[in-house]
Structure formats: C-alpha cells, structure tokens
C-alpha cells in the first residue's frame, strides 16, 4: 500500500495561487458537519458535566465543578452500569469472534458452492438491532415452541433479572458474528500461501496447521475483530430498548452505559449526569482502541 501511495509525491498536483482556497473550500462541508455535530457536542459534554441543570427547563443551570463526576463514580448505579456493560461485552465478543472464526476457517476451503455459504455466514451483518431483537424475542419467548423443542424451558427472558442481559447480548452476538466472519475471512485470505503450502508438504495435519500456523498468523486480525466487537457491544442500544420494551423489566440488570445515558436523558432529564456517563463511555471506547493500536504497533515491530 505504501509503495503505491508514494507514487503521489506530497499530494500537491494543482498548484496555482487560488488552489489554496479551493482546497479549503472542498474540505469545508465536511468540516462544518464535524465541527457542529462531532466536536462541539463532544466537548459540550464536559461543560454539561460541570454544570447542574435546573429541575425545570428554562432556568439557568449552575456550576458544580466536578461534583457530578465524583457522584457518578461513587454511585452504585454507575458501578452496576459498568458491570452490566462488561458482562454484555464478555458474552457478545467471545461468542461472535469464536463463531466467526469457526465459520471463516470452514469457508476457507476450496469446495464447490462455497460462495453461497460465505453469503449465508455474512448475512446477519445486514440485520438491524430492531429486527434482530424482535426475531429473538419470538425465538426465546416461552409462548413459542422454538426453545421448548430443544428441551430448554426458560421463564420470560426479558423480564428475568438472570436471563435478560444474556439474552440481549445473544442478539448482539448474532448480529456481530456476520461482521466477525467477514473480517476474519479477509484476514485468512491475506495470509501468505507459501507458508501453508510448505507446512502441507511437511506433512502437518490440518488440525496442527490450524493451531500452529493459521491462528498465530491470524492473531492480529483476531484481535482487531475483538476490538470491533467490544465497540459494537458498547454501542448496542436498540437490542436492549426493544427487548425491555413494554415488558416492565427491571432496569438494574440491563442498564448498560448506553442505556443509562438514554434513561438519564429521556426519563430523568438529567443532562449533566448523562453527559458524565457519555464521557465514561467515551473513555472506555478510547482505552479499548488505544490497546489495539499498541498491540498493532508491536506487531509491526516484530515484522521488521
């Protein structure tokens, strides 16, 4: 990639005096959107966190410093939210990555009609949160026979404190498995053929090749896939909103960070605290991404 990119030196082909303005004019539309709808609201969170909104609209809010942040960090609600968020990711991500990996390895065979299987394996990627949630509601409901046919008898999952969160995470895992399959397949296809051929000649069994060669070589992609999965699970909202729906479920067990933000904003109208939660969600996302960058960097060092 870098070799081809360097064909364009410095990227300044059209150099006339008014081109400086042309360049700025061309980036302006994107810049306005980013300034107004990404950076401004992002930084506004910090300001909202520092001010406490008045109990009634149209009254001035007053400065409370870091009080709302410390309140949040010390509150049981917040800790429960973080706990639910972590559990949610711990179910969604491994299920998705392992499922995606199994499918990617199976679909990486030279078999007739394998493309049909590839399309089927990726299919869940197009499902929206809302559609996935309503389908799983039907499948998991005690009023339908799907689970009972398998000999599984569960209570009404969405209102059960034990099963609510895992059921919602299962929906996210199913949605994510298609994306995981696509990412891991791309990774598999980019592995050097020579190594696979050499090991085949050496007489390594398929199982040995998989564990000793394929998975280690694929590990950066597997890791990347995991990070994408964590971010996907952090942003899972529709699944939870629909499954809680009108079932009157207790929120405490399914109150993941993103849902907590929604409830603070929509139900309690506590924008200050909602902003603090948003910052927490951002920090967690950032940490996950940074860990990924660190590990990718290390991998590049190994490669040289």
């Amino acid at each position, binding site marked *: *990639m870098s070799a081809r990119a360097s*064909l*364009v*030196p410095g*990227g*300044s*082909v*059209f150099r006339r005096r008014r*081109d*400086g303005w042309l*360049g*700025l004019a*061309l*980036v302006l*539309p*994107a810049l306005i*959107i980013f300034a*107004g*709808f*990404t950076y401004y*609201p*992002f930084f506004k969170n910090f300001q909202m966190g520092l001010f406490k909104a008045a109990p009634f609209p149209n009254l001035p809010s007053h400065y409370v410093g870091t009080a709302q942040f410390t309140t949040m960090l010390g509150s049981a609600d917040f800790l429960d939210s973080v706990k639910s968020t972590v559990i949610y990711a711990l179910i969604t991500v491994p299920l998705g990555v392992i499922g995606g990996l199994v499918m990617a390895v199976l679909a990486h065979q030279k078999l007739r009609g394998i493309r049909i299987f590839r399309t*089927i*394996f990726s*299919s869940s990627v*197009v*499902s*929206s*949160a*809302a*559609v996935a949630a*309503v*389908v799983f*509601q*039907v*499948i998991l*409901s005690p*009023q*339908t026979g799907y689970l009972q*046919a398998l000999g599984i008898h569960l209570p009404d999952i969405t209102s059960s404190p034990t099963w609510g969160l895992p059921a919602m995470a299962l929906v996210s895992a199913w949605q994510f498995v*298609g994306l995981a399959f*696509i990412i891991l397949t*791309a990774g598999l296809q980019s592995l050097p053929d020579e190594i696979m051929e050499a090991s085949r000649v050496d007489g390594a069994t398929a199982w040995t090749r998989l564990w000793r060669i394929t998975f280690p070589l694929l590990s*950066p992609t597997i890791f*990347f*896939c995991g990070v994408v999965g964590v*971010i996907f699970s*952090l942003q899972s*909202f*529709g699944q939870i909103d*629909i499954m809680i*729906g*009108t079932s009157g479920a207790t929120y405490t067990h399914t109150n993941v960070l*993103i849902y907590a933000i*929604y409830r603070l*904003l*929509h139900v309690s109208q506590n*924008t200050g605290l909602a*902003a603090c939660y*948003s910052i927490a969600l951002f920090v967690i996302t950032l940490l996950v991404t940074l860990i990924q960058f660190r590990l990718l960097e290390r991998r590049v060092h190994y490669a040289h």
Partner: protein
Amino acid sequence: MPTKRLARTISRYLLLVVIAAIVVFPLYVLFSGSLMTLKEISSIPPQLIPLHPVWKSYSEAFNTGNLGQYLAVSLGQSALITVGQVVTSISAAFAFAYIAFPFKRILFALMLATSMIPFEVTVIANLQTVHSLHVDETMQGLVIPFLATGFGIFLMRQAFMQIPKEMHEAAIIDGYGPWKYLWRVAVPLARPSVAALAVFGFLGAWNQYLWPLLETGNNTSIQTIQMGIRQVGGTISTANLTLAAGVIATAPLLVLLVFFQKHLIRSLTAGAVK
C-alpha cells in the same frame, strides 16, 4: 481411497450446512413467521414451515401499521445520508490527495480523529443543536449530523492516492484543471471505493436506532422503519406484524448484500488487514 475422500467431502459439507442453518435460523424465523398466523407462530411444538402461507400480516402492517410511511421516511433519510456522505467525502478527499492548502495536515488529522468519537457520545448536545436550529422532529434533523464521515474521507483519499502518477501528469498536459480531473479521471477510477462507501453509508443509515428515536420525538410522520418496528414490536401478540415489518426492513439490505457483497466487504474490512 476414493470412498474415504468422498466421505470427507460429505462431512465437510455437512458441517457447513449445520453451521449455516444455525446462523441463518433467526432470518429464517423472520421470513417464515411473517407468513404465518399468530396461532401458528406460537404453536408448540413450533411450526417451522408455513404450510398455508398467509400474506395478511403484510397488508395489515401496511394498512393499519402505516408501514408505507415508515418505509418512505427510511428511504429518504438513507438516500440523503448516503449521497451526502459520498459528496462530502469525495470533495474533502480530493483536496487532501491533490491540493496543497493551509492547515492541511491538522485538518486531515481532525477529520480522521472523528472516528474515535462514537456518535452515541454526542447525542445530548446534538439534540440541543437540532432543537435550536428548529429542525428537531424533521427530516433535516435526521440527516444533517451524518452528512460527513471520517471513514469515508479516509477511504476516498486512499482510492485517489492509488491512481498512478502518470494519470494526472497526462491530465495536466492535456490541460485538465482540478475540476475536470476530478470528474473525468479521479472519480471514475475510484468507482469501487465510491460503491463501497455508498453501500456502507446506506446500511448504517437504514439501521440507525438511537438518533431516530431521540430526534423524532412523538412525531410519527417522520419516524423510520426501525422506529415502526419498535412501535409494533415488544409483544408476542403482534409478532406476525413485527416480523412482516422486519422482512420489509431487511429485504433491501439482503439485496445489497447479495449484489454488492464485494463492495460491502471492502468497506467493512477497511483497516482490518494491514
């Protein structure tokens, strides 16, 4: 030996079919359930095949569930977002790839960095912004915050950078200005990336949930199909309607997956493999 090989091939297919059946099962329930009556959906043991397919869930979803309106809003919203993202990405990426202008590096870094900020983290102030612009509960409010993406600019810049140097040398000799070069050379050559960006943008816009929920408030005339599903969904007593609406919401995307698979995969794996 041949029988052993045959057995191995058969077992491979068997494994593929079993896994495929598990993965596709929810989508199968979506489609089959939309053709069943409520009684059939909730029959125990489950009825897997709609033996007497009925289409009345669809007509009911369109007639009483107002599915047509939700669908129209979604089509408009997703089309506008897709076109907007393609235009702003091409425009900015072209400047970043070819033109020297002040603050170029910092502006590029700022635009890429936007992908580090999840949209979910910005909803609170964005709601206030659309309110103060008087576009809350409108189509503009649904669309405007998504008219640019760092990912799209990155993807298009990559595509422009891969165009061989000889191409613009030749274009400059032929007297092409930037505008003519963009439309006659750069965009046509970057078509696969444009397609990848468009498919990705459409998929993301169509499946949006949180923003349409917060932004449209109680104005049902401007709610997307996902909100329509939320409205009917939730209970088994309306499962047939919800599943029919779900099919309508998913079918366009399945068509995209089948016909633009290559482009969709390109956009989904950008950055995955170094």
